[in-house]
């Protein structure tokens, strides 16, 4: 077992007498004293999509609904809820592409029906091309079918669902509220996590004891770290997380296009162009709205953020149309990009049928950027500890898999806990958690690796690599069944 490191935020009470407690005494004096930790089966730190999905899964399952569970989040969870009167003219800039597998899981745990459906946009086609060579691949279920086989009516047409992260958390919180039974500590910080003590009749020396900013102490049979990339739970468990920074930032924005898209409202298309500085992606939202994810150098990200709305819109349009040399120049001038692009556009041959329609408006206050990282924890489990979501892994956003991986983690951990409860295992024991680690680690690692390699492959600007990757892309594009295989993987299927 890795060494446990005490996590200290602010020491409220350094010698937490976490020990003189039994399950009976806390029941008698639960509110009378801060010295007796309340004993929980599962304590989840972090109320993001992964943590909420885990708790919803546990409360939803008849096998695990008897467990005593708690949720702690430093933020106000009400802010993770979509306003009831949210307008379809404005969208959050934090969106994700939910795979059919993630959606199926959300349906199974009863959360999907709580999502605001009018703000979810399924898309049926994906256009991906090389910004240097223009080699292109298009994905849709119709061309991905095996040769000479007719299209089955039952075949899905949706590749994935664009959804605001706040809509996902809102749906999960709605379902959790319906299910009830979660001790929720919102706007509450974890001040410290340390191991309990070995007292006379009860030995809590393997149990994490959490001291909260409201003075309460909780003992966790299983402590779940859903607390993000800098997970304090992971630090407590002494689990290393390794990886690297890409030296890139993701620039996001909510945009309005001049129409619903080239396929109309019923056939939405996602676009991604690989530029040497990183991919630029335009993902469809309901109506004429779209969300932008542009991975680029920190300098260019800062530049884009500083532009006037007009110049910013012009730069996004140029990102899908102009050459890498043009783009390099456009990032170097202080302003006036709009005029410059209008002139250059006239002299660049563009096949408008293969690129997103023009951006006409950027929603105020939605242009933001964040650094891109690749991180993977050495393991997802420790004695009485499990990690889910970003606490376990951080991925480059180019394949839109981050949130889906977290949903997959949550579903797998629920399954592992169900099996442990059915067979009387201690759900916090390493032995009971083994299955979760083996279910998820290799799969996530493979996805992290593929996405990382893609990033590196397309960072090359010239030379034989460009020719080879273009050849590969065109070859896959020509082979329906192979494309079907890739699409199945991206959809979260086997």
């Amino acid at each position, binding site marked *: 077992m890795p060494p446990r490191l005490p996590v200290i935020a602010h020491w409220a009470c350094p010698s937490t007498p976490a020990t003189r407690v039994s399950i009976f005494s806390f029941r008698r004096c639960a509110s009378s004293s801060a010295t007796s930790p309340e004993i929980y089966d599962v304590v989840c730190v972090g109320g993001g999509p992964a943590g909420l999905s885990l708790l919803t899964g546990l409360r939803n399952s008849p096998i695990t609904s008897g467990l005593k569970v708690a949720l702690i989040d430093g933020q106000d969870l009400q802010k993770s809820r979509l306003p009831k009167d949210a307008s379809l003219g404005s969208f959050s800039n934090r969106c994700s592409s939910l795979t059919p597998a993630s959606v199926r899981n959300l349906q199974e745990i009863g959360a999907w029906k709580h999502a605001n459906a009018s703000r979810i946009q399924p898309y049926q086609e994906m256009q991906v091309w090389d910004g240097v060579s223009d080699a292109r691949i298009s994905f849709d279920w119709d061309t991905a079918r095996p040769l000479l086989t007719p299209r089955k009516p039952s075949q899905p047409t949706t590749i994935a669902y664009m959804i605001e992260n706040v809509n996902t958390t809102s749906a999960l919180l709605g379902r959790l509220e319906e299910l009830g039974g979660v001790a929720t500590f919102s706007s509450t910080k974890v001040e410290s996590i340390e191991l309990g003590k070995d007292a006379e009749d009860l*030995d809590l020396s393997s149990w994490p004891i959490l001291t909260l900013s409201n003075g309460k102490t909780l003992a966790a049979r299983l402590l779940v770290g859903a607390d993000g990339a800098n997970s304090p739970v992971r630090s407590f468990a002494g689990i290393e997380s390794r990886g690297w920074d890409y030296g890139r930032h993701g620039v996001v924005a909510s945009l309005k296009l001049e129409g619903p898209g080239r396929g109309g409202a019923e056939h939405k298309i996602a676009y991604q162009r690989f530029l040497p500085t990183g991919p630029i992606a335009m993902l469809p939202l309901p109506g004429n709205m779209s969300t932008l994810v542009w991975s680029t150098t920190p300098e260019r990200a800062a530049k884009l953020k500083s532009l006037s709305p007009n110049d910013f819109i012009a730069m996004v349009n140029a990102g899908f149309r102009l050459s890498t040399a043009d783009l390099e120049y456009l990032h170097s001038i202080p302003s006036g990009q709009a005029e410059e692009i209008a002139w250059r556009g006239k002299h660049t041959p563009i096949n408008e049928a293969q690129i997103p329609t023009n951006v006409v408006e950027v929603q105020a206050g939605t242009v933001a950027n964040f650094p891109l990282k690749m991180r993977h924890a050495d393991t997802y489990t420790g004695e009485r500890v499990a990690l889910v979501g970003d606490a376990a892994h951080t991925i480059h956003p180019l394949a839109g898999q981050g949130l889906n991986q977290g949903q997959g983690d949550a579903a797998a951990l629920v399954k592992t806990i169900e099996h442990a409860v059915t067979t009387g*295992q201690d759900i916090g024991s*390493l032995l009971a958690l083994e299955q979760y680690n083996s279910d998820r680690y290799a799969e996530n690692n493979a996805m992290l690796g593929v996405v990382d390699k893609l990033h590196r492959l397309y960072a090359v600007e010239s030379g034989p690599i460009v020719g080879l990757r273009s050849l590969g892309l065109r070859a896959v594009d020509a082979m329906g069944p192979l494309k079907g295989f890739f699409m199945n993987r991206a959809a979260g299927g086997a």
Partner: protein
Amino acid sequence: MAPSRAHNCVRILRYATTRPLRSPSIASIPRRTAPQAAARGFSAQQPKQHEPAKSSVDPTEVSHFNNLASSWWDPQGPSRLLHLMNPLRHTFISRCLSAPAGTPLPSKLRYLDIGCGGGIFAESAARLPKTASVTAIDPTPEVLKVAELHQRRDPLLKQPGRLTYLNKSIEQLPIPTSAEEQYDIVSLFEVLEHVNAPGPFLTQILPHVKPGGWLVLSTIARTWTSWAVTNVMAEDVLRMVPKGTHDWNKYVNEAELRDWFRKQAGWGGVGDGMKTLGVMYVPGFGWKEVPGGEGWGNYFFAVRRDA
């Protein structure tokens, strides 16, 4: 012998024994006791050395649990195979409880675990929501100490009456005088192959089972495969199981158990009253069910007391 073929079923530790050390070298294998086809007449006549009044445990089987105590609950330790097998025990018991033509048992069950060791099964049974109580007995004080120390690590198991350990052999347990004192599930996991006279030993257990309740056990068949796998591969070659754990001559065949229970009045006569499940340890995959495996390797056996 290729390990991949041979270690397909592994006998694991329950009542460990210290026998004269055998050489771990392959060269020594041919000198071992060769498996014999003769039936083990465990019900017909009692072996002469058996003294039921004292103990069912072979006096020559000296405990080496002191060495194992600290590592009993280590998931990577010598008891790993036993830990991995434990969930299957519950799967098997669930199947017994759902067997047709049974008298409905109470909603909360009383368990008696005989030869509980460090408490792997007893703890897990006590954690189940449908458990009223678990009484777990073992004659070896050191092992019972391990079990009790580990019980303190779970507040749930410290609830009064949920899990009680007794340093007793089955002979020392008072014979129940009413159904309330009897148990719905009496378990005997990895014990039978370590006692000298299984017949008289089982006879002492029978009164503790409530009418409609189940006696559930797991053991290993006395066959050529089990000899090669448990004594040679598991103990000597792969060292997956502590040395001296097994005495192949004491293994019991499933058919012998079936025959024995058929001769007992009031056992396994109603409906699907006798159940068997063959299991096998597959490295990299864990314990797997193997239909027919009871004929040659590890197996579970359960018999219901007629109501």
